[in-house]
């Protein structure tokens, strides 16, 4: 498996990125990491570590405080764009960045295209009752009821690929009873009842880390991101995910925290390689095709 890795993304780049890449290839000898960034920077860091990795040149990065879409559009040579171009061209099986999520999303969509109308950040939270797929965990701040339905279909397909049979879909809300929440939740509830998914109603924030009523939890990206960071901060668990999948783009694109350290980068790279090995994309196309035909 070949993973294209953004050398310039993240608060601790490039050192944490390169150290994470080396950890990943050490743990998975069948893995090939392609560093995407300035060759002189990559070369110096690799030489200092006595290591060798493939390097594809790209000179620019999109800053955290920059408009992500405009930044990606104006910087054709940006690392986030190049990692996805390598996937598009078949030179890599997956792309990984711990740079700004908005920029990674924009680069993925503009380079690879979409599988569905609205991609989402999908995080898999392990629980005693099995994995819980939370989406959207940060791709889009303002959701619509139709988008939450699209997330339910995407999340169901992903959960099925993860081995969950007949995944139950819950709508993240402030209470389990019907009629709870703001207008977005009320409208989404009505649409989800008619959607080609196994909708089980509203779920609450604690149902994500604890598991239970739903295998797939859908929400808008703003709320999902707030919940995820709260769970991470409040929990002492070491098994919480370090990486997330951009679900709904036409390729495998994995993102991590901007504050990622080497271990986190390695986890992202290994996660991306696993998804590629499992044939995520063709399976997702197949499952989505079936579900969308049923809708």
């Amino acid at each position, binding site marked *: 498996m070949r993973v294209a890795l953004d050398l310039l993304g993240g608060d601790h780049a490039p050192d944490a990125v390169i150290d994470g890449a080396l950890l990943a290839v050490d743990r998975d000898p069948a893995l090939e990491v392609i560093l995407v960034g300035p060759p002189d920077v990559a070369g110096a860091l690799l030489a200092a570590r006595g290591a060798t990795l493939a390097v594809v040149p790209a000179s620019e990065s999109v800053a955290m405080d920059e*408009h992500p879409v*405009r930044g990606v559009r104006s910087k054709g040579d940006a690392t986030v764009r190049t990692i996805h171009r390598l996937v598009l061209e078949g030179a890599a099986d997956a792309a990984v960045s711990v740079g700004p999520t908005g920029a990674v999303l924009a680069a993925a969509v*503009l380079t690879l295209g979409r599988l569905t*109308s609205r991609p989402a950040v999908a995080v898999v939270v392990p629980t005693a009752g099995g994995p819980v797929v939370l989406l959207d965990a940060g791709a889009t701040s303002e959701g619509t009821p139709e988008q939450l339905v699209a997330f339910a279909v995407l999340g169901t397909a992903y959960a099925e690929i993860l081995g969950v049979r007949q995944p139950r879909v819950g709508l993240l809300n402030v209470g389990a009873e019907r009629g709870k929440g703001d207008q977005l939740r009320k409208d989404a509830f009505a649409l989800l009842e008619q959607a080609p998914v196994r909708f089980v109603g509203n779920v609450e924030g604690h149902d994500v880390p604890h598991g239970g009523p739903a295998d797939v939890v859908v929400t808008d990206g703003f709320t999902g991101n707030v919940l995820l960071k709260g769970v991470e901060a409040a929990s002492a668990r070491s098994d919480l995910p370090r990486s997330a999948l951009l679900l709904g783009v036409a390729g495998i694109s994995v993102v991590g925290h901007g504050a990622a350290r080497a271990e986190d980068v390695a986890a992202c790279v290994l996660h991306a390689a696993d998804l590629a090995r499992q044939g995520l994309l063709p399976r997702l196309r197949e499952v989505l095709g079936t579900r969308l035909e049923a809708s």
Partner: protein
Amino acid sequence: MTAEQVLDLLRSAVVTVLEVDGASLGRGTRFVDDLQADSLALVEIVEIVEEDLTRAQPGFRIADEDLDRLLTLGDAVDYAVARLR
């Protein structure tokens, strides 16, 4: 390339990206207010149209600083036609 041909290209890009009914799209349709296009969708549409128009005029590009002024499909068509020789 005529304004009608550019409008057809643009309409096709909008349908692809936003999954709306092409028959409902006219020169007066507003990208944000009527179609709820966000910044990413707008740039997707722009890049599809640029690719199409590059065949007619190599290197055709909509300047980033002009994007905010293209509020309707008609604005975008007029902008493109004025820059196509």
